[in-house]
């Protein structure tokens, strides 16, 4: 059990470290992406349903599988849709940034 605790503590630090500097532009996609990742509960839902033998347990387990799947696929798809919109503008931006040089335009992290 101490192994699990070790993993937990290390994961806390990794989690803090990974998102310590994020521009506000990315707050929404990041939240949405993290939201999709906790859909990993689907793994747990499959495991418990996979060994359930009584009707009640099976029913609860399947409900969990269903809800977790909605969380996972919905989360990743919605995040991708958000990020897709940023992506389309990169070439335009790169070209215009050259034209716009000298007018004090500050690169803000995009």
């Amino acid at each position, binding site marked *: 059990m101490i192994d699990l605790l070790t993993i937990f503590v290390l994961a806390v630090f990794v989690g803090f470290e990974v998102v310590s500097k994020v521009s506000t532009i990315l707050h929404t996609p990041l939240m*949405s992406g*993290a939201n999709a990742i906790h859909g990993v509960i689907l793994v747990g*839902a499959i495991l418990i349903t996979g060994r359930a033998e009584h009707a009640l347990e099976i029913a609860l387990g399947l409900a969990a599988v269903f809800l*977790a*799947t909605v969380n996972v696929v919905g989360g990743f798809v919605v995040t991708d849709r958000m990020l897709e919109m940023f992506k389309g503008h990169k070439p335009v931006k790169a070209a215009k940034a050259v034209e716009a040089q000298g007018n004090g335009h500050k690169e803000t992290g995009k």
Partner: protein
Amino acid sequence: MSPTWVQLAYLAAALCFVLALKGLSTPKYARAGNLLGAAGMALAVVTAYVHGAVHNELLILLAVAAGVAVGIPAARSVKMTAIPQMVALFNGVGGAAAALVALTEFLEVPDGSVLFQVATVLTVLIGSVSFSGSVVTFLKLQEIMTTRPVLLPAGQAVSIGVAAASVLLALSVVVSGSGLLLVLLALAGLALGVLFVLPVGGADVPIAISLLNAFTGLAVAASGYVLANTLLIVAGTLVGASGTILTRLMAQAMGRPLTNILFGAFKPTAAAAQTDEHRTVRSGTVEDVAILLGYAHSVLVVPGYGLAVAQGQHAARELAAVLEQRGITVHYGIHPVAGRMPGHMNVLLAEADVPYEQLKELDDVNPGIGSVDVVLVVGANDVVNPGARDEPSSPIYGMPIFDVDRAKAVVFMKRSMRPGFAGVDNSLLYNPKTTMLFGDAKDSLTKLLAAVKQV
């Protein structure tokens, strides 16, 4: 203990998740990060299915198929303006799934160790809070219920009572191992989630979503203890930790301490005292505004959620293009919390093909705002409310704003005199520099576009 190949697959998935979060924090790799996360998830789920689905294989597949059938169309069809509430819903179902997993496991193995029991009650409690809290945030953002803080009579006492009852129930579940008490605990958790989000004011709801997101992560981590599954612990903890940091970053962007947002529900009395019924409002016609804009040198557009709701982004971009042809400098001032969530407005304007380099942040705009001829406030309100800067009694005091009252003229495009999402009165409406242009944002912008071409 799971076989080695399963452990290795879980390790690979966990790595994908870390890299996904890392990628999502930098614009360049954000999309790749998200796809990597999805790949890791697919790996983990297939592994769990192949290794763990001893019984009910077909039923599990059907449940997954049903989830996909609901989740993908929902995520594909949701309007960009409604993204925050969609995220809230996805978060809520995740929390519910975690609670159900722990509940089911408890029924299968009623006599586990104390640690197992503690992890179970934590998962059920946090998962339930996250589920009901997310549903309430959804109702608020969808404006099915009021966006104002809801203050129940003796709300604080009730919350403390329910919280205390939850702790007692949790302890008795650990001691007695009773399934019935665990179900009661889940119900207490649901009540707690509702009580927790009700007093949160409209503009702060996104922060509550972010916090509930972190909660769900913790519930998933706790469920990892229940199932002794390292992947759940790692992934859940990652989301819990990063979600906490993200919540703090968001609160900082709004200039408000987290405790204020969660516990300092807006006190309407303080704001009401400032209201003066006799102040006058100057309302202008489209032609007035067109002349104002047509002879300006620099124009700043401050878009808000109202613009997005009216789907006026394209009209705004066309207007900006016409103004630029006349040699007028046009910038957009994007407040960190414009829209419904930090970064939401950038997504919405990107959707409308607004060039990225025209988008300016607070710090780029405010120092030179005195030389801006006309500020066009479209469907925004709270982010330009001088009360946030000048009136310590204002509920949004301390939130950084665009100092548009220091510009030479302000045009306020609004549907009505109704206060903004935070429900706070805005003295800028009564400023002599301000011209009001009432109407639907898209409608007004289209008329304005035609009128500017005539000037």
